[in-house]
């Protein structure tokens, strides 16, 4: 009789990479639905086309490196990158914009470093920043939300993507942009004058952010990531916004609630900052990492040139993450801690 000897630990982790990625994909659904409800089918077209390209690029890169494509494609990481980039891109983006972004994300940011698990920078954010620097006009023209303008249908969304020349995009400054450009009106008056604003933040944006928050909380409940980095990031954004709000003068930076529910705050906090590969690893490291992302997001949003800053802040902190890890190594059980954390 053969007895199998099993050594500890006996706990079994049911989560494979593929299962984690699929749950992340599932958690983006409410956010994507809200974006579609307010801004039309643009985001869905973005995601579909980006996913197609991402899987093809991933297969190409795996083939070039002589790896089994079936196994690596099965982990769904390329799909997650595609969905995240598709959400981050403005709806009704032309096809070449999506193609350049996905190529930068999958080929440059991921496979040049050896694929999933080795990439020091978040691939979706690299794709986004490459596009933002190279094509600022296309990247900062966002469609008006339902209630502030006409929302194109599915057919028009497809035309906007694949025959960009035949589609006259109606665009409108995002609420963050409006607030940044404002230097004469009190925040309350600006709110009353601009159709972009909703109850707490931007029209549509507030609900998209709440939906991403809901998806993120579900992932937290499923223990896909820990609370440290997102909570630190959101807390610092709220704190900075509270410090610089000054009751809403023309020079103020928007209320804490506005910043928490604007742009990519919640999307970034729960879907980008929590990336297990590119963020800091230890618990203290994640707190530092998240807090610094929040600080940079606020500083660049309010004082920098760009209306939103999650992508930049995340890339800058990706760059700092190995250093943070070096100095926040947890004490090993049975060993005395030393001053420098080694």
């Amino acid at each position: 009789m053969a007895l199998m000897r099993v050594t500890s630990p006996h706990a079994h982790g049911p989560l494979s990479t593929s299962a984690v990625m699929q749950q992340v994909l599932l958690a983006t659904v409410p956010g994507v639905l809200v974006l579609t409800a307010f801004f039309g089918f643009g985001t869905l077209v973005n995601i579909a086309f980006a996913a197609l390209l991402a899987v093809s690029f991933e297969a190409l890169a795996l083939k070039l490196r002589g790896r089994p494509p079936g196994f690596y494609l099965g982990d769904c990481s390329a799909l997650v990158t595609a969905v995240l980039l598709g959400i981050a891109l403005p709806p009704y983006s032309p096809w070449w914009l999506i193609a350049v972004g996905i190529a930068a994300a999958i080929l440059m940011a991921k496979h040049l470093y050896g694929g999933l698990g080795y990439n020091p920078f978040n691939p979706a954010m690299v794709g986004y920043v490459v596009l933002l620097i190279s094509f600022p006009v296309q990247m900062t023209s966002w469609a008006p939300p339902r209630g502030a303008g006409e929302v194109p249908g599915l057919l028009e969304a497809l035309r906007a993507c694949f025959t960009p020349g035949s589609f006259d995009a109606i665009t409108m400054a995002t609420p963050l942009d409006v607030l940044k450009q404002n230097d004469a009106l009190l925040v309350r008056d600006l709110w009353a004058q601009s159709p972009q604003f909703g109850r707490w933040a931007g029209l549509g944006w507030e609900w998209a952010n709440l939906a991403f928050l809901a998806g993120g909380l579900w992932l937290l409940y499923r223990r896909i990531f820990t609370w440290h980095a997102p909570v630190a990031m959101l807390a610092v954004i709220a704190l900075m916004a509270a410090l610089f709000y000054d009751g809403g003068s023309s020079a103020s930076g928007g209320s804490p609630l506005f910043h928490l529910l604007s742009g990519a705050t919640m999307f970034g906090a729960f879907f980008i900052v929590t990336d297990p590969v590119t963020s800091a690893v230890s618990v203290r490291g994640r707190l530092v990492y998240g807090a610094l992302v929040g600080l940079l997001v606020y500083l660049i949003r309010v004082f920098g040139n760009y209306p939103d800053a999650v992508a930049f802040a995340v890339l800058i902190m990706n760059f700092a993450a190995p250093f943070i890890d070096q100095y926040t190594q947890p004490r090993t059980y049975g060993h005395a801690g030393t001053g420098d954390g080694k």
Partner: protein
Amino acid sequence: MLADYSILLIGAILVNNFVLVQFLGLCPFMGVSNKLETAMGMSMATTFVLTLASACSNLTYHFLLLPLGLEYLKTISFILVIAVVVQFTEMVVRKSSPLLYQVLGVYLPLITTNCAVLGVALLNINKEHNFLQSLFYGFGAAVGFSLVLVLFAAMRERLAVADVPVPFQGAAIGMITAGMMALAFMGFAGLV
């Protein structure tokens, strides 16, 4: 006054970072970033040299070259000033920390040819900085250089064990990473 100097500092450290935005001082940035400890030693030595050289070259320009009408000699005289400061630093490091001296090895004299050092000295003249401004600008440039060098070194230690495709191993992936870091630093544009 205080605001002016903090703007000068933040500008030199982040917004116009000498390595990632102005692309000066790339040789030590690529050369000494393979190990975190060496990178830290190098950044401390460079910070010391850069701050001192920035101040000294400002004094040289205003009290030697300008009165004699020899402004056109500024490049060559700054190189001389920098060489003297580096030599001085080398002597201090050798006596005070033989270990650091051993670790830094060939790179210490190489600070002489770190173009960021000469760049800061010349930019000080271009921007008409006074003595105190030169001191702060040099210090800010050095802190910016040290910041990215140390972060880059920590990242390269991780890249060393990554499964990078053969043609991109070593310096190639280092350059690509530096490029992505430069992309990220463009986010600081307009901050001051």
